[in-house]
């Protein structure tokens, strides 16, 4: 018998600290599979955020740096400028990327920084126990929106791919989900396209992945998948928001 599916080399054989059914693990796996398929583990450096995925440096087999909250794109910029032949990716949650780190996100994107951002959007702060995130949906109940997110008070969620797609430095922006096997395969293709764009020097690439947080959403893992489909996917439509992977972003005034 031949092996049809096994753990990718770029994902170390250690148990993760994620809750049962949390799809962070799926996204880790996809990033690792792409690293394997592109044969880049030896020259890839990951930058991990503050939040649930803070300890991802223990899971990926490539070199990794743990950045201050929200600063992963700035840290990645330093790593990439120091050794441009390395492949540098950030792995960030919604609080990290779209709240405290908004400036770093927007400016690394508009600079066309040749890095890849894996943005995990689950609409909640997981590590601190389920508070409102910048991507928490209107009406969504969290620990700090106990009556549901009131947009009169807390404003509206940020649609990151849509926002970044207005910037000239963005080579690739796609939103995917990991709610089903077909969508997981599409997510992997998007991540591979984003890494490839970087390797070819095309500019900033981001893949936003809609992900679940069963624990803090208060659902079983299977219910969480359904909640993501019913609530997040209508608000955050899947698709390619920018694709300059052919021409790149240089001289893209």
């Amino acid at each position, binding site marked *: 018998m031949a092996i049809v599916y096994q753990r990718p080399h770029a994902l170390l054989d250690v148990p993760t600290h994620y809750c049962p059914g949390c799809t962070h693990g799926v996204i880790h796996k996809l990033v690792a599979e792409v690293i394997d398929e592109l044969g880049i*583990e*030896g*020259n*890839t*450096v990951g*930058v991990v955020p503050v939040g649930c995925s*803070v*300890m991802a*440096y*223990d899971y*990926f*087999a*490539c*070199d*990794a*740096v*743990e*950045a*201050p909250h929200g*600063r992963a794109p*700035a*840290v*990645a*910029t*330093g*790593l*990439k*400028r*120091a*050794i441009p032949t*390395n492949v540098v990716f950030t792995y960030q949650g919604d609080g990290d990327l779209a709240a405290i780190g908004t*400036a*770093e996100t*927007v*400016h690394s994107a508009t600079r066309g920084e040749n890095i890849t951002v894996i943005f995990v959007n689950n609409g909640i702060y997981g590590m601190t126990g389920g508070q409102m995130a910048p991507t928490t949906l209107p009406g969504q109940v969290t620990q700090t929106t106990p009556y549901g997110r009131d947009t009169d008070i807390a404003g509206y969620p940020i649609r990151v791919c849509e926002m970044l797609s207005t910037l000239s430095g963005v080579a690739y922006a796609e939103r995917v989900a990991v709610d089903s096997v077909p969508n997981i395969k599409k997510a992997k293709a998007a991540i591979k396209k984003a890494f490839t764009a970087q390797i070819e020097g095309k500019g900033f690439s981001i893949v936003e992945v809609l992900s679940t947080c069963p624990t803090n959403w208060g659902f079983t893992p299977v219910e969480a998948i359904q909640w993501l489909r019913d609530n997040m996917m209508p608000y955050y439509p899947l698709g390619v928001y920018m694709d300059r992977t052919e021409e790149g972003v240089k001289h893209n005034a």
Partner: protein
Amino acid sequence: MASNQKVLMKGNEALAEAAIQAGCHHFFGYPITPQTEVAAYMSKRMPKIGGTYLQAESEVAAINMVLGAASAGVRAMTSSSSPGISLKSEGISYIAGSDLPCLIINVQRGGPGLGGIQPSQSDYWQATRAPGHGDLHILVFAPSTIQEMVDMVFDAFENADRYRMPAMILADGMLGQMMEPVVFPEKKVVTFDKESWATNGHKNQRPHNIVNSLYLQATELERKVKERFERYEVIKAKEARAEEYLVDDAELVVVAYGATSRIARSAINSARAKGVKVGLIRPQTLWPYPSAVIAKAAQTAKAFLTVEMSMGQMVDDVRLAVNGKAPVSFFGHTGGVIPTPAEVLSEIEKLTGGDR
């Protein structure tokens, strides 16, 4: 810039040129008066040598770009002035907690808040006590001439690499803006092997390297911090530096650093001309602090006077070093109001009983 040739240079530009000559090819900055010439100079020179000059979106981003570049194992630096250093303090803490080397330049201006844009020394506490949150120190160098700024940039990079920690040049607006003749020494840049920790890609030849400051196990965190503090003890024993001027027979010892030490020196010369036995101790490193030099002087001197461009910050360290053996007084002005030699002379005379 040719070596061993005397040139007239502005302090900020000399700092920048020295950094390049010390092997720093990665600069991440953000404009703020009175240090902006550092960034401007870097933006002019870096493209010519294939280096990186990047104007970040904020001081916060700039220090984190330094964190990234330092993680990759290259010499990296940033430069700012007081309000900007406050913004960098988060990154400085992470860099210290990740055992990364880098250089941070603070061309101080008056504070607190937006304060003013004139020279000041009111970030002494910040630099030596709390450059960021947590149990940590950074190396702090205090130059008093443009030449010393150049020399200390080399030393700062070297010791930052040697001890794997951030180093700071604590200058002020006066040193940053003034021009003096300077010689760029033909210094051999000492390099360090960073392969055991740098996140520069493992090339399938070693286990992955991790640059990190997170230790969720409290005992592990304590072990890391204690390990760092053992290193700090070595640094305290080996790297504290001070210049002594006419201290041997001094009854009064003035302690001053940076630009203020130049003013103090003029006042001391005037006092000596009048027969007053006064000398100067000029700390060249503020962390580690040259406490031993001051403690030794306290065995013979009858009094100490600290002069600063602040409300009195370094005076704390002078008092700790003197340890009650003699009275320690303070004279100073805050941001932009530069003490005059006449004022300092008058303080000296007050403390030594006036004209003899």
